[in-house]
Each structure stands twice: as C-alpha cells, then as structure tokens.
C-alpha cells in the first residue's frame, strides 16, 4: 500500500515539478491519502460544485434559450450567437479613438465610470455628513424631512434641464444629475443609522462622559458605518442606473451615449451588448461594495 502511495506521490511531484505551480497546502493534504482519498475529495467537491454552479448555469442557459427563440421569431433582434460574434469583435479593439463620435467601447465605459465617480463622490461628501447631522439633531431632521420627502421621488432626469441651465455644459450637467439622484439614499441611511444606535452604547458614552469628538470617533462613526455603506451601495446603484439615461440625452461619450448612437446606426447587437455591459459593471460595483461592507460588520 505504502509503495503504491509513494509511486503516486513521485509521479505527482514530477508532474508538478515540470511546469505546474506547486499546489496550495489545502489541495496537497487530500492528495497524500492516495487515490481513494483523492477520489472522495473529488466527489465531495463535485457535489459542492454541482450545488453551487448548476442552478445559475441552468438559469443562464434558459435565458439564452428564450432569447434565441425570440430572436428566431423577431427578425430585427440578433440571436445569442450573432451578438457573441459582434461582442468579440467589439472587445478586440476596446481603446481606439476615431474622433469625438467614434471611440472604442473601453473609452465609453471609462467615461461613464468617471462621471459616476465624480457625481457619486460629491454626493458622498455632502450626503454622509448631512445624514449624521440629520440623525443627531432632531430639529434639523424635522426641518429637512419635508424637503427630502419631496425631492427624493423626483425622476433623476427632471434635474437635467436645471443642470444644463445653470452649468451651461453637458458634462457637468450629467454629473449634477448623478449627484442629486444618488445623494438621498446616503443621507437617509446615515440618518437612520445614527437614530438606531443602541441606547447601551450611548449610556456607555454618558457614564464615561466622553467628549463629542470621542463620541463621534469611537461610538457614532463605527456604529453607523454599516448603515453608511448600505446607503453608499444603494447610491452607486442609482448613479449607475441614471448615467445611461443622462448620457443618452447629453451625448458626447459614455455607455449611454453609445447605446443611443448604435440605435441611430440600427446596430441592435451592440445595444444588447451595451445592456450586458451596464448590467455586469453595475453588478461588479455592487459586489465590490458588499465586500467592503462585510469588512466593517461586527455582528
């Protein structure tokens, strides 16, 4: 038995020594148990893989299937295969630049992300401190809540004419729209977080007679951080939703403009690709913030 094991290990060592990086210790451990152990390990992992990967894969397959059927019926919509070929072609040259109305897809995505970054960043800088103040001081809360209640449900694009009027240019106007539509979730969530700080923590602060500064840095800020991050996550979702619509109206560059441009060119495959891009980038932004939020949760 031990002889067989030795042979297996030697063989593995030769294989891994040749051109494969040494496996991580976790993977190496079951290998030592020989074929039987490795087989069991593989079987267990296969089951986990099956449980985790199969349902989403099935969902995607179903989606592509339905899409194919629709494309088969409606001739103007390209099917999955045609879209895939178009996407491969598109992403093989993402960063070309043939003048203002003809830039690579990479430039368009980066331009949109840049606008979202500026508008959202400004909204965070204004909204989070405002949320703290609204949450901490009831007077301010009662003063501002009617205004916020009225402004919050306004469609982001209704702000665009005001932005164009005041700022005169398309670029800052679209950033303004991002700002005004993404500031509310951060204000409201931060304020809710401040209001929901457990009384126990505030009692600790009172018994210790901590200064307002210490109360803020040691109790208020860390206690509210998870709420702030929820607000940030909602806001960045809104910002990314809004940018596509804003860019359709303002033109220039950006993924939203690109969708509109491709509509004028009647390039439906590119529009479908754009939908996927918007979805995937939005998903990545959200996931990145989820990871950040996990880092700061204490429960």
């Amino acid at each position, binding site marked *: 038995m031990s002889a067989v094991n030795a042979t297996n290990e030697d063989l593995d060592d030769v294989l891994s020594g040749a051109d494969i990086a040494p496996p991580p210790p976790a993977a190496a451990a079951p290998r030592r148990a020989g074929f039987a152990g490795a087989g069991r390990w593989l079987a267990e992992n296969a089951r986990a893989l099956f449980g985790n990967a199969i349902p989403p894969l099935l969902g995607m397959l179903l989606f592509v299937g339905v899409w194919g059927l629709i494309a088969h019926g409606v001739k103007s919509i390209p099917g999955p295969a045609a879209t895939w070929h178009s996407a491969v072609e598109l992403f093989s040259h993402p960063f070309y630049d043939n003048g203002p109305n003809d830039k690579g897809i990479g430039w368009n995505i980066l331009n949109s992300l840049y606008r979202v970054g500026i508008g959202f960043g400004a909204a965070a800088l204004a909204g989070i401190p405002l949320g703290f103040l609204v949450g901490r001081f009831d007077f301010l809360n009662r003063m501002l809540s009617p205004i916020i209640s009225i402004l919050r449900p306004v469609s982001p694009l209704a702000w665009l004419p005001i932005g164009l009027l005041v700022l005169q240019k398309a670029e800052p106007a679209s950033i303004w729209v991002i700002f005004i539509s993404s500031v509310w979730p951060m204000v409201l969530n931060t304020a809710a977080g401040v209001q929901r700080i457990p009384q*126990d*923590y505030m*009692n600790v602060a009172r*018994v*210790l*007679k*901590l200064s307002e500064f*210490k109360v803020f840095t040691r109790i208020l800020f860390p206690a509210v951080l998870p709420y702030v991050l929820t607000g940030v996550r909602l806001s960045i979702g809104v910002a990314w939703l809004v940018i596509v619509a804003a860019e359709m109206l303002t033109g220039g560059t950006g993924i939203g403009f690109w969708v509109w441009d491709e509509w004028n060119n009647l390039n439906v495959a590119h529009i479908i690709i754009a939908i996927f891009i918007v979805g995937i980038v939005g998903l990545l932004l959200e996931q990145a913030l989820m990871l950040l939020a996990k880092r700061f949760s204490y*429960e």
Partner: protein
Amino acid sequence: MHSYVQIENAAVAFDTRKGRFTALTGVNLDIGRGEFVALIGHSGCGKSTLLNLVAGLVGASEGVLLLANKEIRGPGPDRSVVFQNHSLLPWLTAFGNVHLAVEKVFGGSESKAQLKARTTAALELVGLGHAATRLPGEISGGMKQRVGIARALAMEPKVLLMDEPFGALDALTRAHLQDELMKIVAVTKSTVIMVTHDVDEAVLLSDRIAMMTNGPAATIDEVLCVDLPRPRDRLQLAHDPRYHALRSRVLEFLYSRQARPSEAA
C-alpha cells in the same frame, strides 16, 4: 455607620402617552463606604431605575441623592456601571474597551504607558489577560461580562453599579463569576450596588439586601442585614443555618408578602 451614598426620599416619574407614571417613590437608603448592597425585587419593580438614578442616567423628580456629600447630577465616571448586556463596543477589542474608560479617567494625569498598564492590570484582575486582543464577538458571554467588569473597575469608581450583571449567563459561569467578584471586591474594597433577582446571589454577595415592593410607585420595604462572615464560601454556606435563615427571609418577602400581582389574584 458613616454614609457614603445617601438616597433621601427619592422619587422617579416618567411622562408617558398614558399620562404620568410613577416608577419609584419615597426611596431612602444609606450605603457605607466599602459596603456591598443588593437591590432585589420582582422584575418591573424599578430596581434598575433606582440603579440608574444613582448612575445619573435617570433624573430624580423628587428627593436628593448624595455621593460623598456631593449631590449626584448626571452620569459620571465616579459611578461606573456594569450593564446587564455587557454593552461592550463591538468594534473595539477587550483591551480597547477597557482602555477607552481608562483613558477618559486617567488620561489627563498619566502617561500612555501607565494607561496601558492600568488596562492590562484590569483585564488580568478578571482573568482575561490572554484575551486582550479579542473582539467582543469572538469571546463568550461570560468573558464579555468580565470585560464589562474590568472596564468598570479600571475607572476606580467611588461606587460600582451592577445591573443584573450575571443574569444572562448559565448557572456554572454565573457561580464562577460571583466567586471572582467576591475576591475582587475583597481586594479593591469597592462600594457596590447590585441589582439582582437571584436570591442566592444576593445573600452570597451582599452585606445588606434592600428588598423592593412591586411597582408602580415601588419603594424599598425592608433592608436585610447579611451578617455572614467573609470570606464566604458557597459550599460551606450551603450547610450554614444562618445562610438558610436569611435566604428564607428574602424568599418569604418575594413570594409571600410581595407576590406578583398576577399570582396573588
């Protein structure tokens, strides 16, 4: 006996939606320096309110409270509180939680090294020197409560206020922490007021037991002197007739004279 904490004719009333609610009325209690007093009563009788009154977290609507002949106005670190649910800040380590209190009380007069030494000493006093770098979420309920005690003791308070500190713990952990608390108090000679609803705990730990009537408008009905010699040992006390007599007195008060209204009806 020279009074250290004096509660004179104190009353507490809250304004609620249904009108004024009187939680406590006519409370009188004098506590000597270094004395351990338990407040016992049925839940809802206002014993925590009385503790919070001494802590300054609740204001008296009538009467006067004095600590070392000075009126108690608002909370302060000279009356540290061990909260029922430990109330540790979950983003600070055990060390960080204790250090926050130490820094506040001694930060003005002592060096950083001295503050660290105080913090470490407090954690070691409760037997948690090894867990200093752990977050509250990573330690057991008993350990959390010990950090809460370390935080309160590290402030070197004039009075240590404990609000059912062991109520949420299992019986074995509770017994263990009671023994440790007795040792600590014997060393630090702290003045302690402890809220409890555990008769054995009250008799084991206290010098006197203030027994409270049922609310609303609760008050201290009788103060029982626990004249058992210290150091006390729970196993020896189990065979001590004086212990049983005292225990019966408290039980009789709670279950016969102050039976819960629902049970009496």
